[in-house]
């Protein structure tokens, strides 16, 4: 499967599992965007805690969703607690524009403020 989604208030939460690569980003991208638009949501939370690998395709996916929520005055945040994933996030420069939390609850309470 590779990913699941859930909606909490006006937040779309996307949980990725296993390895996030070009194959999975292509499978999930349109579905995520459709879900976000159809339910008139505001923010996107991308949960990377259950990933064992992410390559630069995952960075591209986050950047693309950043543009989507930004144009809708929403926010995108990441959840990560894995050193391998943290390394590529740091390298990508994403930290300059996107906040990363280690726990989903923290991200939710931040977005609710």
């Amino acid at each position, binding site marked *: 499967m590779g990913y699941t989604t859930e909606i909490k208030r006006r937040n779309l939460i996307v949980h990725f599992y296993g390895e996030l690569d070009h194959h999975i980003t292509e499978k999930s991208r349109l579905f995520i965007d459709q879900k976000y638009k159809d339910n008139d949501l505001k923010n996107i939370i991308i949960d990377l805690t259950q990933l064992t690998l992410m*390559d*630069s395709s995952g960075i591209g996916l986050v*950047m*693309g969703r950043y543009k989507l929520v930004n144009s809708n005055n929403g926010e995108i945040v990441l959840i990560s607690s894995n050193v*391998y994933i943290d390394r590529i996030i740091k*390298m990508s420069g994403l930290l300059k524009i996107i906040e990363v939390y280690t726990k989903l609850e923290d991200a939710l309470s931040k977005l609710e403020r």
Partner: protein
Amino acid sequence: MDKNYMKLEFLSRSNNESFARVVVAAFASQLDPTLVELSDIKTAVSEAVTNAIIHGYELGDGIIILEVTIDNSIIEIQVLDKGKGITDVEQAMEPFYTSKPNLERSGMGFTVMETFMDELIVESTKDIGTKVIMRKKINSSIDKE
């Protein structure tokens, strides 16, 4: 471990990206890499194979050739495609440069390969293809001797 070699050919389908990573990781395991080293190698392979699929063959069908050589503690990985090639390799290797921004590519592929491996060589000829050569020294294998 003195010397070992493997070669694999597969179709340029995106579901073969994970296949290529698993193959290289399994072959590399004879060097007893640490989990970090294994993650570095798998991510670098993922980038090179994805480039071949998206840029080399532009999402069409083609054959990707993966060769891995182990020489003492050095692992060398070659990813070769016979696709469209890169006209300006230097530009392609710049961080954040992408020839396909509409596909939401981050332009980080070569930067990731460079960071996670010790050495990266890219040879490309327009309309002939691209060969990516990456080398990494696996330190844990020496510590175990």
